[in-house]
Every structure is written in C-alpha cells, then in structure tokens.
C-alpha cells in the first residue's frame, strides 16, 4: 500500500533531484560549479545576505512570538481566543500575498509611510528593499512559531514556576531559568523551520523587487534571464541541501534535548 506513494515519489522527486544534481555538474565549470557558491563573489554575496536576512528573521520572530505566545498561553481573558485566531490567520498565506501585505504597510501608498508623514512630514518607504523582505519574512513566520510555542508552553509544568517564585526568583529569573530552558526544544525546532523557510522563500522577494540580492532570486535570474540552467541547478541543489540540513540538525538537537529533559 506504500507502493503508489513510493512510485510517485521516486518518479517525480528522487529521479528529478538526481537529474538536477547531474545537470548542475554539466555546465561550463563542470563539477567545480558546486564550489562556485563560495568561490564566485556574486553568488557568495547572495548566499551571505540570504543567510543574514534569515538569521535576523529567526531572531526577531522567536522574540516576538515567544513573548506573545507565552503570554496568550498563560492568560485567559475575554477575547484572548480571538487574538490567537487572528495571530494564526496568515498561516497559509502564499509568499506573493505576504509581499503584497508588506507593500500595503511599507510601500509607496503604505500605512507606515502615511503615519511617518503625519508625524515627521516625510514619507517612509522601505518595502522594496532588504528591510521590506525582512518584514515580510517575520510576518509569515510569526503564526507558525506562535503555534509551536503555545503548544510547548502548555506542556510546561506550572509548579516549576511557582517553586521558583516561592524561592524568591524575580519574574525575569523565572523567564531565564525556568521558561526559556523548558521551551528550548520548541525554540530550536520552530527557529529552524523559520530559518529554512526564509532561506528558501521566493514569492515574497519576487513580489517586492527582483533586485533584492537573495539566493532564490539569483537562481531565478540565472534560470530565466541568463538561461544558465546548469548554474541554476547547482545553486538550487545547494540551497535545498542547506535548508534540509538546517531542519535535520534542529530535529536532532531538539530530539536530544527532549530526551535529556525526560
């Protein structure tokens, strides 16, 4: 009964991926093309800025979702479930729509620009740059990270916090010594998903500007404008390897710390 899925998966994923790998090594540069991502200045810059924006996104999202998620898990008040629904609503918005949301906020006719004009007299437009991309990635990472953190916070033993408090720990010490260690597996796994998604995302950057220098856009440009299929294949294979490795690493790390905690 596993056979239909197995055949489909082999025919349309494993074989094409193998082909992609071979084509990646069949260009002008041969197999050294796989090193180009670090030896070629342009690709290296593109890789570094991709990793930088992904890292910044992950850090910002974990802080924002951590504060909001723990808060919503700990306090029930009228309207709190509506807040949870609203915060997780954009969960499955596609990248293009996220890009448009950034334009609505920080574009030429955007809300932030209008607010800035009202306050300072100058319109603030940053949607079509790295800052806009960062905002878009944070936007689509918040819902999924909040869900993971809320689920993990639910399982934390409240007695541990009470014990810490009764021993005289300040709220900050409780957060640092009880809550954050308890949530480490959730932070690791949702942070990895957040990082990997930001590294591989394409739609948001595509909507905002094709001149933002991130790896997925570089691949797209190689493929369409330069018709350099071999290079596009190489770069996307490397991109896939990066995101897969990040997720696998985090799973191992989170699994290990879960085991250690148990």
């Amino acid at each position: 009964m596993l056979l239909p899925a197995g055949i489909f998966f082999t025919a349309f994923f494993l074989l094409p991926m193998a082909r992609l790998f071979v084509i990646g090594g069949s260009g002008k540069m041969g197999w050294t093309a796989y090193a180009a991502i670090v030896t070629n200045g342009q690709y290296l810059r593109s890789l570094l800025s991709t990793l930088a924006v992904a890292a910044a996104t992950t850090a910002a999202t974990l802080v924002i979702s951590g504060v909001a998620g723990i808060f919503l898990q700990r306090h029930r008040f009228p309207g709190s479930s509506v807040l949870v629904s609203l915060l997780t609503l954009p969960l499955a918005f596609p990248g293009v729509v996220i890009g448009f949301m950034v334009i609505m906020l920080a574009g030429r006719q955007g809300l932030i620009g209008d607010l800035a004009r009202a306050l300072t007299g100058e319109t603030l437009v940053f949607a079509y740059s790295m800052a806009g991309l960062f905002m878009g990635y944070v936007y689509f990472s918040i819902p999924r990270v909040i869900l993971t953190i809320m689920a993990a916070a639910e399982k934390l033993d409240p007695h541990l916090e009470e014990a810490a408090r009764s021993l005289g720990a300040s709220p900050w010490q409780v957060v640092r010594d009880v809550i954050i260690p308890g949530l480490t597996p959730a932070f690791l796994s949702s942070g990895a998903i957040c990082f990997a998604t930001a590294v591989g995302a394409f739609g948001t950057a595509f909507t905002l500007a094709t001149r933002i220098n991130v790896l997925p856009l570089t691949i797209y440009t190689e493929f369409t404008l330069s018709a350099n299929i071999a290079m596009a294949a190489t770069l996307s294979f490397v991109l896939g390897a990066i995101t897969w490795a990040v997720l696998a690493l985090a799973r191992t790390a989170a699994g290990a710390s879960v085991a250690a905690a148990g």
Partner: protein
Amino acid sequence: MRRRGALFWLQLAFTLLVCAFLIAPVVLSILAGITNNYLIGLRSGLTLRWVFEVWEGYRDTVFRSIGIALACLAATLALGVPAAYVLARCRSRLGRAIEELLVMPVAIPGLATALALIVAYGGVSGLRTSWGFILIGHVLFCLPFMVRSVLAVLGAIDLRTLEEGAASLGAGFWSRFVTIVLPNGRSGILAGSLMVVTLSMGEFNMTWLLHTPLTKTLPVGLADAYASLRLEVGSAYTLVFFMMIVPLLIGLQWLGQPRRQAYARPEGER
C-alpha cells in the same frame, strides 16, 4: 479575579501590536480592493468595479486553482492515506526513514523541486503545457501534510489490536481498512484534506516555474496583477483570494482545537 500587574498590560499591549501588524495590511488591502481611488482614500467612495474587473480578467485562474486543488486532494488521499496506514502499522527505523524521505519536498525550497521537475520532464511536451505538470508539483508538496496528519491520528490508537479483533471475527483486509482504519482516521483525514486544499490553492514558488501562459493559477495571476496593474486591482484580486482561503483557514483552526478534536471522535478511544 486577581488584579493584573503592569507586566500583564505591557505584554497585552505588545501582543495587540503584533496582531495589528498581521491584520492591518489584510484590512487595508480589502479596503483598497473596494475603494474607487486608494490614493484619495475612502472619501472617493466604495465600488465593486475592481472586483468585477478581476473577475472578467482572471476568472479562469480561480477555476483552475480550485480544479487543481481538488485534483491534488484526490491524489493525496489516494496516495497518502494508505501510506500513512502502513507507516502507522510499522513504526520501525525503516518506517521513520521513509517518512523522513516523504517529507523532503517540504524541507526543500519549491524553486529547487520545480527546477528538478523541469529538467527531468520539461521535454515531455504534452505534460509541460498542461496543468497536470503543476498538479504533480502540488501533490509532491502537499502529500507530506496528508501523511503526517493521518499518521498523527492513526499512530495514537491501537490499530493492531482493533484489526486483530476484527480479523478474528472474519473481517478481510479490505473490510478492516474501510470499517476500522478510515473511520478512526477520520479527523486526521479531514484536517489533512483542508490543509492540502489550502496549500494547493496558495502554492506559488513551484507553480511560478511550472506554469505556462495558458495554465495560470490564482497566485500566479496575483503576482501578475501586483507587478503590472494598479493597487486597487491587485487588492481586489487579493480580496477574491481571501474569500476562498480564509474559510479554509478558519476551518483548520476549528479542527485544530484539541477539545473539539477529542469530542469529534469518541469512538476512537481504546
């Protein structure tokens, strides 16, 4: 009720701010889609003109996206539910390895998967130009969600004992699958189905490379509209998309509430 401290209000304010960040652009784009001139604002009056314009120009993308999403649902049900069943029955190292493998299309960027499909099958002309090519990509991407969702439910019940009981009463494999596995996995199948339709409807990264001018899906049309049409039209198009996707997302949230999930399958208890 105990008095809430300053910390509570600070956190509440922060959470509300995050919520505003997520929801404000949605509201703004809906408003822009029904405003005569967004630059002037609501003073210019409300209109459905842009929605009609989108409907005239992009109706085909709406129907194509629905069609692909339903076909994708059928395919992921046919491939994913049996696969999840097998994986639930044999929780071995091999089973977990297969699960890991099946999830790879989600871990790898859609751009890479789409390029791989193009280099492998782009030369098959009848396939390259049909929406079947997009469907293949969507099934690859959505299958893990169906498998995981069904597996989560089937993995939590003692299938082996239930099936042995039925087998000892003379039930064949097929009747066990239909009367035990499917009913017990119902909530997982439902959640997985909603997820698959939602994801397929919004998939862009792969579809952008796999589509041809004659096989545009809704998100592809959205990208077109954002790039070349006025803000109001892009917004109206987004509004059409929201009307299709938001009910699905609300359904997913509703299913995701554990209280209701437990309530929905009393017979699933051991």
